């Protein structure tokens, strides 16, 4: 063993003996600093013969690297164990803690409405809104439901004490928004109209006198009933899932003709009635100043609350208006 190796071995032994980072760092000047044996040995290389100098220099480098490596490795080990000790002293039982804040919650109906809006916005529609208190013109007459018509009774309208009797009412559907849009906007029209609607339904597990609907209206050139069926099918797949099918069944609404109800398929193969739809009645277009020989289109509508009830299998729709935080905070 040469002089260099002896120096190195002694240094490594001292490094291994150091008990903590501070002690180790204190050794550095004597082992690797200016006054260390290996450092002064380097300065003495110049005194050697040239042929010995190279070989001695290489050995000295190896010895020095050995010490450097031992120092670094020992330092890492000491630091790690010191950190581990320190971490142990700050151990927490995280199950002791319970957050006192919670996020807020969007109402279930808002969540359903936002999702529906997003689906239709993706299909190129904009969103129209209108007042909840309406005149008979917007709620009935412009929609081809004259005062004597048997269909009027089926809307179970809640009237408001303004003007003549039955002149002003809480809208019984969001269709008045269709009329207001067609009066104010030239075709093409691609809108949906979500909003609150009202009927004289006594509140029970499946009914509310105030509930939410969404309607769609498309007026363009050459719009067909096939477009209506395809649009409903696209929406149904986008909202309920690719595997859900839709179908149209003939029905009757004064404001559309032909009219249909539309169903969606359930897992067990049966059909669930979702809403009504049809081609906009030419008389309704004329009432809004739109030429039915130039423009035609379709409309559809269904309940929003029911979708929320279905999705979460609520057993009582009144939860939607009870505003009980134990309910609101579930969603």
């Amino acid at each position, binding site marked *: 063993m040469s002089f260099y190796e002896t120096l190195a071995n002694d240094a490594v032994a001292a490094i291994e003996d150091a008990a903590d980072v501070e002690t180790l760092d204190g050794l550095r000047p004597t082992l690797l600093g200016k006054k260390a044996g290996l450092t002064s040995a380097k300065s003495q290389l110049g005194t050697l013969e040239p042929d010995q100098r190279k070989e001695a220099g290489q050995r000295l480098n190896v010895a020095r690297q050995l010490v450097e490596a031992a120092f670094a490795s020992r330092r890492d080990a000491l630091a790690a164990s010191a950190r581990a000790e320190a971490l142990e002293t700050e151990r927490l039982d995280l199950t002791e803690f319970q957050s006192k804040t919670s996020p*807020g*919650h969007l109402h279930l109906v808002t969540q359903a409405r936002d999702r529906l809006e997003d689906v239709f916005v*993706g299909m190129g529609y904009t969103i129209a809104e209108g007042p*909840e208190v309406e005149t008979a013109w917007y709620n009935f007459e412009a929609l081809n439901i004259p005062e004597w018509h048997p269909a009027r009774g089926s809307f179970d309208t809640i009237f408001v004490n303004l003007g003549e009797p039955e002149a002003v009412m809480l809208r019984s559907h969001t269709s008045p928004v269709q009329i207001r849009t067609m009066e104010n906007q030239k075709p093409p029209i691609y809108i949906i109209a979500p909003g609150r609607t009202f009927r004289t339904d006594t509140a029970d597990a499946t009914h509310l*006198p105030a509930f939410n609907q969404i309607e769609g209206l498309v007026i363009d050139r050459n719009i067909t009933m096939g477009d209506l069926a*395809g649009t409903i099918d696209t929406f149904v797949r986008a909202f309920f899932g690719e595997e859900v099918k839709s179908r149209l069944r003939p029905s009757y609404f004064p404001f559309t003709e032909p009219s249909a109800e539309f169903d969606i398929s359930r897992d067990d193969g049966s059909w669930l009635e979702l809403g009504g739809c049809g081609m906009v009645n030419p008389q309704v277009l004329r009432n809004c100043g739109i030429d039915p020989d130039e423009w035609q289109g379709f409309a559809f509508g269904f309940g929003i609350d029911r979708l929320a009830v279905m999705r979460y299998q609520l057993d009582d729709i009144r939860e939607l208006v009870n505003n009980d935080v134990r309910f609101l905070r579930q969603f």
Partner: protein
Amino acid sequence: MKVLLSWLQEFAPGIDGDPVDLAETLSSIGLEVDAVTVTGADLDGVVLAKVLDLRPHPDADKIQLVDVDSGDGQPLQVCCGAFNMSVGDLIPFATVGTVMPNGMEIAQRKMRGEMSNGMCCSGAEIGFGDDHDGIMLLTDAATHEVGTPIVDVLGIERDVLFDIEVTANRPDAMSVAGVARDLAAALGVSFAFPERSYATVETSTAGQASIAIVDPSLCGRILARTIHNVTVGTSPAWIQQRLIALGMRPINSVVDISNYVMLELGQPNHTYDLDLVPDGAIAVRRAADGEQITTLDGTERVLIERDGVIADGTDRAIGIAGVMGGADTEISDSTTSVLVEMAWWDPPSISRTVKRLNLPSEAATRYRRGIDWGDNMVRAMDRFCELMAESGATISDDVIDAAGTTPDRAPVPVRVDRINSLLGTDLDPDAVTAHLTSIGFGVEAPNDAGVLTVHIPTWRWDTETETDIIEEVGRMHGYDKLVRTVPKPDGFGQLSEYQQARRSVRAALVGAACDEIQPMPFLAPGDLANAGLAEDGVTLTNPLVHEESVLRTSLMPGHLKAIAYNQSHRAGPLRFFEVGHVFLQSPDDQLLPDEREYLAVSISEADAPAAIEVLDLIDATLALPNVQLRTSTPAGMHPTRSADIVIAGKLRGHAGEIDPAVLEAFGITGRVAWLELDLGAVLNGPWGNRKYTQVSKFPSSDVDLAFEVPDTIPASNIAGALRKGGGTQLVSVEHFDTYRGTGVADDARSLAFRLRFQAPDRTLTDDEIGELRAACVAAAHKQKGVSLRT
């Protein structure tokens, strides 16, 4: 409208198959089937039994003990919850082991200690009508042996009942024959009205009765005939069963035939006791205002001018046209001669009267949709006479057939192009013609331009226009055959800026731990007063309940109720928000109320600053211009802890706390911070104006200043003054402390602000900062009574 399969088959024998498939077919052509019931099946084990004895249950009030003989002559004890039986009555009886149509198995069991060996049945329990009230008493069953299977006693055959929801545009489907016509067309089987035949006698209706149509706009057509040797008794079982199956109660042989004909052919009709109608003379006219009549149900009705009446020769009203007959000429057990009348009434006239009197009788329900004014009226008269003749009555050999104004249905030009353009189909004229003729429309060959001339049948009053006819083509073509396409709008879909902003506000409030509530907009009459608000809410004409009869003018009462409700369930603290419409009194010339979209936030167990935090959050979310709080006492709010919210110089809402008196009225404990904004006005005004300012790369310096400020001066005034004094190099002002007490005057407080100075292009020197500080202090000192604390 309910129909029986066996009855449909009388018009179209080819209608047959699986009941569920038939129901699907009906639904597919717009006759939506709500329910399919197989009747007469599954009644094995139900027999005719005789009541032998009735006695109280020793240990129960609501059931009694009944001994019946079910065929073996031995008394069999059953417990029964109905009390309409007498000893000797014949009843349907389900023996032990019977599986009832609803799936329930009859077992021998003890009820409160007494054995029950079977079940006495109501009509509904054996699938015979809707009658759940009491046990079915079989008054005409004496010819049958006790123990005979009930299906033999009642002559029940297996049949299928379809309950169809008929839409308002389908007057024709309000009859068995009409449903059969449509279903036969859909199935491709033939449909025909059976021939009716009966003998007549040589008495002349014209010699015994007369009809005058005074108002032809009311009555399009009216037929009448006299019938003699009438015996008013009970109807044959088959008529009774069909009436019961379709939901009508058998009454007597004449009324039952009247109802039978209405159900079968859709033609309502009315029978008068001929001896009670002077000279058999009837006239059809509008009522006089205030004219009175007692209707069949014994109720006195007051009429108005637009109602239609049938009057006798003395001009006395003996019936409300199309709605209900009068009591005076009603047939009775002693009636021997009747005048039967069948009319076509103007649907809007009938509809208005039905609505006004709230009398939706079976007849009126048909008249108001518009019944058939063609051959079907004669057909119905023949059917009525045939059934009367079978009961032994004699029929006069002529019919009075008077005409008023019937609907004018000119042939309609229908463009085949238009059909295909509306339906998205590729039908040729032959296919269109086949669809239409299958349901009785007449179609002339197309002209050169591809226009068909279509004749509308008289049983389709609601059908008038080309579009009406296109709907028929679509219906018979089948909606499931439409090729599905999706139109591509030229424009693009997006939320409006208003809608995006509203979503942002909602999201910010959710982030601030607020739960969204959606109370209904109805208030109880005292709610506004309890909330300290003006009682000027718009009221409802026909509220469901008194507690929901006023429309809200503020979101406050709804929130307070929600807080009280949740506190009563020991929940809290509560942080609620809502976006909803309120309805303010409208300006004088407007019919509709002044409807606005408001945003409200309520925080329970929190004081006013919590509301200001929310306001700042909304301000930051929307980047509102110049939001100011102006001290005020808004209605319902805390008199010394509330303020108006002024945005860009306009009053837009209120923030602060709810008035403690209001909290007490709603039963709320703790303070409630409150904010209400006219969100619509805010979002329709300026907002979202964000401008880029360069982010400085140079160090900033903070300076703390405390001022003694009189209580009369709001802190925001001092902050504003400091901003003014500091100019653009004052990048933020934070009010971080308020102190009252030693060293500060009694009517003042110390307000401490932290000012941060920074320049975009250099590091500010100590001298510059000193100058800025001095400028800020000078600006604050311009407010009277403000002094820098040192």
